[in-house]
Every structure is written in C-alpha cells, then in structure tokens.
C-alpha cells in the first residue's frame, strides 16, 4: 500500500473514492507517524488519537464522500477553540481551559468531512516569531532540529512539513502563518481581512488577526481556504456574501496578471539564499513573458513600527479578560486587585507581559496621540499606498522573511531582532490584504526559503493562480525532500 501521508488532498480523495483506503486508514497512518516523529519535532500540544479514529469510523458509516475534505486529517493551532478539548494558547493562564463551543472554522472543517487530529504548538497567545514563547514545548524545525520552525504558527507549519498532517490551520496577525510556512518549506495563506471568521479564534489583535491554511501544495491550500471562508454572523468584521470558489478559480494561466517588483529590493538586507530565490522567481516570470514592473512599496520599517504599536495596543485590551474570574488560572489572594495582578503575573509568560505593558504604554494618557493615534494615521497611509499599487497591478512578489530559519535561542533575548523577522509580512496585515508564502528554494545550510505574493483586497483567486504558477516552475516539492532520519531519532 502507498504511504498515505505523502499524498495531497486530491491524492487522498482519489484513494478514498476508489476504496483503496478508508478514513480510518488515513487517520491511522498519520497517528502512527505522529507517534514516530513528534517526539523530536514537538509540533503538537495535544493529539486526539482515539477521538480522531472514532470520528473517522463515523465518517465511514455516514458515507457522504463527496464532501470537499472527506477523511482529511487537520491539525489546528491551539488558539482556535475546540469544544470540550483543551485550547491553551500555549499559556499557563489557559492550562485547563476547555471551550464550551467550536470556532466557526472548526465547524466548517467538520461539515466538509475533515477530522481534527490534534492541537499544535504556538508562541503564547500567538505572540512571537519562533514558537519559543510557548509555555509547554519548544517546537523544532523538521528540516534542521537545531532551528526554530518560525512562528507563531510554528507547530502547524512543522506538522505539515514533517508529514504529521496534510493540512493545518494557523492564525496570522503579522505573518504568523506565512513566516513559519517559509521556514518549514510549506505553503501558508492569509486571506483578505474578514475572509475567514474569527469567531472562536482567541483574540490577539482583532483588527489584524486572520485564520488560514498551511498545506504542502497551493491546490490543497485553495481547497481548505474555500472550505473555511465565508460570511459568519458571529463575526461582525466578516465579509458579507458568499466567498469565491477558490478551488476552481485558482486554476488557469497567468498571462493576464500584472506582477509588481518592489523598487527597494536591491537595498533590503536579505540573506543570499533569499535574494537568489527572489531573483529566480522574477526570472521565471520573465521567461513566461510576464514582465514585472517596479513599484514603490509602503515603507517596510514604518509598517513594522506601526504594527507593533497597533497589535500590542489591541493585545493589552483583549488580554484584559484573563483576570482569574471567568475561566483559566486563578492565583488566590485576599483581595480582588491582588488576585488579578498575581494571576496575570504568574499566568502570562515574559513576551506576553512585555507586549501588554507596551500596549498599555502606547494607550496611556500623554502617549496615546504620539503612538496609537499616529500609528493609525500611518495605517491609513499604508492602506492608501497599497490601494494605489493595486489599481495598476494584481500581485506583488517579495520575500516572506529576510532569512531562512534561525537557530533556537538565537533571538530570544533580543525582542527587536525577533520582530524584524516579520518585516515583509506585517504590511499585508496592516492593509488587510491577502498574502501567501510558497517554498521556493533551499539555503546553503539546507533550510527552505519562502517567497510571498500579496494581492489586492478580495484578490485570493489571482493570488492562488500566481502561486500555482510559481509552484509549478520552481518545483520545490520535486527538487527537495527533508531527511526524515533525525525526526525518527536517527534510528
């Protein structure tokens, strides 16, 4: 029998449709691989072994095989609510939290026939770029166990790269789907702000957060995005109307697409492998007779400063709910005020406290205008500059991150160095634009390099079409395979 964990969604569905495999075989194969490999990778915080097998068996009984994700195992980032199952956000403060409801995306996955196989590790409350800020585990990059998988959806990206799940959900506030996807050699998509419901996503920065898929191929990514997207009355910021039929609309040639190249590409401080991969992609476009035109992007330095003010301001407000009263940890004290302060002091990790304090600072009297209001003006300017670019272009091609994966521990004590790994991803969040990272090459050290495409608001179909083209010409999955030996204890 073929190795089911090497198949795309389409491949799995062909096996299932022709009765060569059943959902229990698929789920069983993945659970077995998790058993063998996750000791080294630590992508999962919780694996729903028996529950996933029961669900797969129930699917077999039900039939209804025409569902788009029938029998497909999905790993879910642990800041997305799963009814009755732990949802910790990798924080001590939610250690025993079991949400009494499912996130809308989880309901939609289940409706589409998917099987949730477990919850993946992240930086606490999705605050970080390496998954090192988890209170529970350090996830390792499957391409090199000494390296970080990126973050904050590092567990999800590592799970897909190590073949522990064909699909994982992540969340992206400043690059937290795309940057780990780039570091782990997989595909990661963040839709237009409002494309996917945030109901049941534990809030970090509500004006920036979006859930999206991490997969091995762009085609799989389109299929999962189509299943989870769409209006949700539970999220007032969700885009009204039906979502685009992405699985169908993302197919086709790209001769009509106008691709833009950032004018300052040459000035950016990029690792050589990242520069080569980016230039190689532009070359491939030229060979296909797509002539990239140079555009001035909004200032990436301004974007990242704007991002850290807005995101942390919102975080300081959103995280006020963890007070030891309603759910999660309580550290008993003899007064209410002391209980709040001790619960939050002990329950939150260092990076979360740093961000809450920074957010509090920029919102406090005397500083509000200079930081928060100013950042909102910068946001308005960035939105405007992107809108003008997308009047004349369909896609912008740029690196996902300035370097491949860095070593575990390398940046933990330098928050600003860590923040700068998001320099190319935050602009799409600030302007609410869809953006995708696809694997494009390998560095001298054998680490994957990702490339990013950004489209105008609502432009997911063009984005995926462009990504499929690059995937086809760059042939990452055919050219490179990770060495699974070290994941299985070298034995």
């Amino acid at each position: 029998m073929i190795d089911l964990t090497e198949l795309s969604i389409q491949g799995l569905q062909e096996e299932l449709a022709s009765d060569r495999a059943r959902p229990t075989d698929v789920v069983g194969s993945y659970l077995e691989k998790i058993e063998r490999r996750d000791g080294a990778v630590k992508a999962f915080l919780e694996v729903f072994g028996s529950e996933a097998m029961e669900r797969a068996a129930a699917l077999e009984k039900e039939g209804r095989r025409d569902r788009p994700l029938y029998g497909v195992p999905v790993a879910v980032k642990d800041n997305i609510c799963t009814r009755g199952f732990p949802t910790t956000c990798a924080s001590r403060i939610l250690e025993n939290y079991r949400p009494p409801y499912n996130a809308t995306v989880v309901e939609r996955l289940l409706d589409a026939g998917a099987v949730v196989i477990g919850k993946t590790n992240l930086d606490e409350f999705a605050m970080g770029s390496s998954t090192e800020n988890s209170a529970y585990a350090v996830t390792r990059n499957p391409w090199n166990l000494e390296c970080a998988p990126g973050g904050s959806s590092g567990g999800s990206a590592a799970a897909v790269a190590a073949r522990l799940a064909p699909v994982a959900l992540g969340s992206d506030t400043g690059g937290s789907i795309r940057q780990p996807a780039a570091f782990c050699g997989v595909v990661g998509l963040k839709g237009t702000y409002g494309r996917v419901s945030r109901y049941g996503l534990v809030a970090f920065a509500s004006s920036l957060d979006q859930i999206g898929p991490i997969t091995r191929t762009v085609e799989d990514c389109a299929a999962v995005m189509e299943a989870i997207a769409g209006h949700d009355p539970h999220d007032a910021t969700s885009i009204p109307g039906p979502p685009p039929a992405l699985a169908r609309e993302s197919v086709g040639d790209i001769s009509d697409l106008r691709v833009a190249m950032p004018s300052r590409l040459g000035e950016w401080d990029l690792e050589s492998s990242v520069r080569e991969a980016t230039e190689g992609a532009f070359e491939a476009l030229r060979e296909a007779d797509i002539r990239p035109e140079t555009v001035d992007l909004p200032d990436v330095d301004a974007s990242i400063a704007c991002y850290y003010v807005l995101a942390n301001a919102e975080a300081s407000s959103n995280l006020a709910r963890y007070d030891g009263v309603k759910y999660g940890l309580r550290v008993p004290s003899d007064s209410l005020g002391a209980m709040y302060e001790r619960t939050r002091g002990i329950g939150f990790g260092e990076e979360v406290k740093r961000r809450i304090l920074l957010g509090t600072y920029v919102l406090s009297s005397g500083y509000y205008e200079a930081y928060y209001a100013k950042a909102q003006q910068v946001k308005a300017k960035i939105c405007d500059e992107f809108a003008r670019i997308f009047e004349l272009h369909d896609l912008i091609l740029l690196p996902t991150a300035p370097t491949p994966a860095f070593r575990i521990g390398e940046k933990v004590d330098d928050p600003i160095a860590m923040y700068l790994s998001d320099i190319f991803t935050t602009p799409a969040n600030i302007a609410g634009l869809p953006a995708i990272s696809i694997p494009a090459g390998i560095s001298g050290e054998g680490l994957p390099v990702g490339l990013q495409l950004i489209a105008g608001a609502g432009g997911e179909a063009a984005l995926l079409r462009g990504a499929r083209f690059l995937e086809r010409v760059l042939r990452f999955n055919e050219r490179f395979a990770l060495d699974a030996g070290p994941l299985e204890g070298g034995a």
Partner: protein
Amino acid sequence: MLRERVIVKLKDADLKHLERLARVELSGESRAKLRRQLGDIIGFVQKLQEIDTSGYSPRAYLGGFEPELRRDGTEECLSRDEVLTQAPDALNGFFRVPSVIGREEP
C-alpha cells in the same frame, strides 16, 4: 532597514505605573530586564514620528464594506451552567471572587 536603535530610558516608577494600569505583577528578577527591553521597543517605534501623515486621519478599521448589523434581539447562546464549568470558582450560578467591599485596594 531599521537597524539604528533609539534608546529610551524608562524609570522604575514608570514601570510600576504600567504594571498597575495593566494589572500585572512582575517578579523581582525580571523587572530590570523588562524595563530595558521596553525602553528599546519604545525607541524602536519612534520611527513613526518621522513619517509624514498629514492629510490622513487615524484609521482603526479597514471598512472595505458596510458591516451588517444584526437584529437587536435575543439569540440562542451558551447556558449559564456551560459557561460556569470553566470558572475557577463559582457558587449558586455566580462567579465567586475575593471580597471587593470593605478592604482597601492595593
């Protein structure tokens, strides 16, 4: 790219004020490090001050579409009992907390 770093020094009293506003108690050993790091990050975001934003009003939402308002009526929601299963302490259908009245807040 933004590599030059502006140094902003936070005083311990500033940090204490933030702790109180944010209701977070910091442990002794992390205070000095956190104070320095917060100063660095505040220096880092000073970049915003150099950007000419004249003509732009602060923008909180993206607002590409009109948000749909829901009918102002009751809808099915989680029951009180379901919600209280997650509370650290609950009694007779209420959250239970340390006494609020009759003691001075710190």
